[in-house]
């Protein structure tokens, strides 16, 4: 009897401890599974992201590349990468990572997707682009650069200038401070900073001219001479504006009789291009246009601003929610790109001696925006206000510290982040515009 009782006690205890041990082991197993699953999922995500980065790197080196990798071994798993072009010049990268691990409490293979979209980068997306950075030229405390900024040179900062958009440089950055009365070296990159980034300064005038010949307007002298073209945009109150144009052979003084044309018939696709010569520009723009002029060797290619060149409505208005900040004006539907194969020059005339307003993205392939005959002895001409963007080969003088010339204000038209004037020059590189993971 005693023996049976002891046996029962032993069996009961064994059962009890088996249950406790099972629960304890189960808890431990689940805890390990939790960690293993997190590790597996993180690793899987990294595999897919790595594949996307590898494909993007190939495209940055060779923008024409499309193709795929299948079952590429990586980090204990493998990757399927697929690169396709769509919508003419956009690229989609899909990277699918595969990894066998613990998912949902069982060992199996799972997948993770990373999807990237790349687009050619238009120069108009820059608030300020300069191919060459002048040696000894510094952005200093108090300077504010609006919109995305890029230089192919080395950016020099003194103190703490503020950059509102993303900053990229090819040559890096040199920041100094605590000299000349300026504070410590602390440039503020509110949109981030990245280097080295190579955005070569290129201009394909053939593409613009072809677009002009196709459905726009191309000015070209029949005798092969360089041609001066004067465009005066005007808003006649209708949905489509007009432009008054006249021409003369460069170097002569007599302009042809001005012709007024509706812009939708003169240049339906918005491109007005002067093959060789100079362009004289002013007026109120109604619509979306790219106007410009080519050069011949080192001659011509100047765009002269004879007066304000503005949209019907300002592209930027004050942000009522954030005083001091501007927002895009929803009522503004106009857009202008100005392309000078040489440079943009503000004429020194009566109209321009009391401020000048420019609503456009200005592209200066062989120079930068400047003022006709600028020197320290020039009178004060007020403020040069550019609402759009400035792209130039190298910064030029527009004013002096003694007040001669203009005080320059550049505000970035945020619509250029996603929209470009028709056939505005594009970089030869792609940029990532969307990243899903």
């Amino acid at each position, binding site marked *: 009897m005693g023996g049976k009782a002891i046996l029962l006690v032993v069996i009961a205890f064994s059962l009890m401890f088996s249950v406790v041990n099972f629960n304890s082991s189960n808890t431990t197993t689940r805890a390990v599974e939790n960690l293993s699953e997190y590790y597996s999922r993180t690793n899987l995500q990294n595999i897919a992201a790595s594949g996307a980065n590898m494909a993007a790197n190939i495209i940055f080196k060779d923008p024409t590349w499309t193709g795929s990798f299948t079952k590429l071994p990586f980090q204990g798993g493998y990757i399927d990468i697929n690169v396709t072009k769509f919508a003419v010049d956009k690229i989609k990268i899909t990277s699918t990572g595969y990894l066998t691990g613990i998912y949902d409490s069982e060992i199996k293979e799972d997948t993770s997707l990373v999807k990237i979209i790349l687009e050619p980068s238009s120069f108009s997306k820059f608030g300020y682009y300069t191919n060459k950075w002048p040696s000894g030229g510094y952005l200093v405390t108090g300077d504010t650069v609006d919109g995305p900024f890029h230089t192919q040179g080395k950016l020099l900062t003194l103190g703490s200038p503020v950059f509102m958009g*993303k900053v990229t440089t090819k040559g890096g950055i040199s920041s100094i401070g605590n000299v000349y009365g300026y504070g410590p070296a602390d440039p503020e990159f509110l*949109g*981030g900073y990245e280097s080295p980034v190579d955005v070569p300064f290129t201009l394909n005038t053939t593409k613009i001219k072809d677009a002009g010949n196709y459905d726009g307007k191309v000015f070209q002298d029949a005798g092969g001479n360089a041609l001066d073209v004067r465009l005066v945009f005007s808003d006649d109150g209708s949905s489509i504006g007009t432009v008054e144009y006249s021409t003369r052979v460069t170097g002569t003084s007599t302009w042809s009789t001005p012709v007024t044309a509706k812009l939708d018939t003169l240049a339906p696709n918005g491109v007005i291009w002067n093959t060789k010569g100079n362009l004289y520009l002013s007026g109120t723009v109604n619509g979306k246009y790219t106007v410009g002029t080519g050069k011949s060797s080192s001659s011509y290619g100047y765009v002269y601003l004879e007066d304000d060149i503005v949209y019907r409505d300002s592209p930027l208005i004050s*942000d009522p929610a954030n005083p001091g*900040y501007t927002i895009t004006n929803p009522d503004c539907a106009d857009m202008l790109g100005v392309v000078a194969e040489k440079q943009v020059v503000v004429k020194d005339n009566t109209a321009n001696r009391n401020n000048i307003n420019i609503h456009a993205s200005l592209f200066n392939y062989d120079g930068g925006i400047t003022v006709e005959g600028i020197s320290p002895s020039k009178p004060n001409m007020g403020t040069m206000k550019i609402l759009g963007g400035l792209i130039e080969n190298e910064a030029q003088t527009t004013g002096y510290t003694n007040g001669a010339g203009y005080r320059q204000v550049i505000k970035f038209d*945020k619509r250029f*982040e996603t929209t470009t004037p028709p056939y505005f020059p594009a970089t030869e590189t792609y940029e990532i515009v*969307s990243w899903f*993971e």
Partner: protein
Amino acid sequence: MGFSTLIDILGSSLVGGLILLILFRMNDSTVENSYLNSGEMIVQSNLLSIIELLEHDFRKIGYCEDYDKIPNPATAIIEATDTSISFKTDVAIDEDVQTGDGNVDILKYWVGSPTDSEVAGTPNPKDRILYRQVNSETPLAANLGLTQFNLKYFDDDGEEIHTMPSAPPLGIITLQIDVTVENTASYGDAADEDVYSKDKSAFWRQIRLSAPGLSIR
């Protein structure tokens, strides 16, 4: 029935009592260990749930299926404090289709106070609610035993941002996320070192989380 029998009964009672005491003590220890192990696993599971949710959403800062609707991802973070963040994203259509619907959503995370009514009734005096709100929908809340939710922000130089601009872009490139989870109703009394329960307090830190969308374009 003599004196020796009485001694046997008393001895048996004493031995039996001792064995009973040992059994009761063993039962208590077994129950306590079982609860503590379960509690630790609950804490760990809750912590992982929070981490996976945060990583899933924070990776998508600045993402929109129709990417033209967030033309400047650098401005995607709208508001950032040490205990809350609000940003533009495109919330997944559903669990199976993780891509968004092409419309910009505003996703906000913030943490409540230990004195909020939602957690006033829990035994843990320090737990608080983590809220997740999509646009202006009713905030989703879960009491997973969160006792610390702390965010730090860093610029492109890796320097911590102490003073946020009044409007985007805020200059944020990476985030540090600190999360501590404790059991909401643990077994036993408060332990030492300011930890509520005997269950281990689980702490997780993402040193530098970078949303790809913040640094594209």
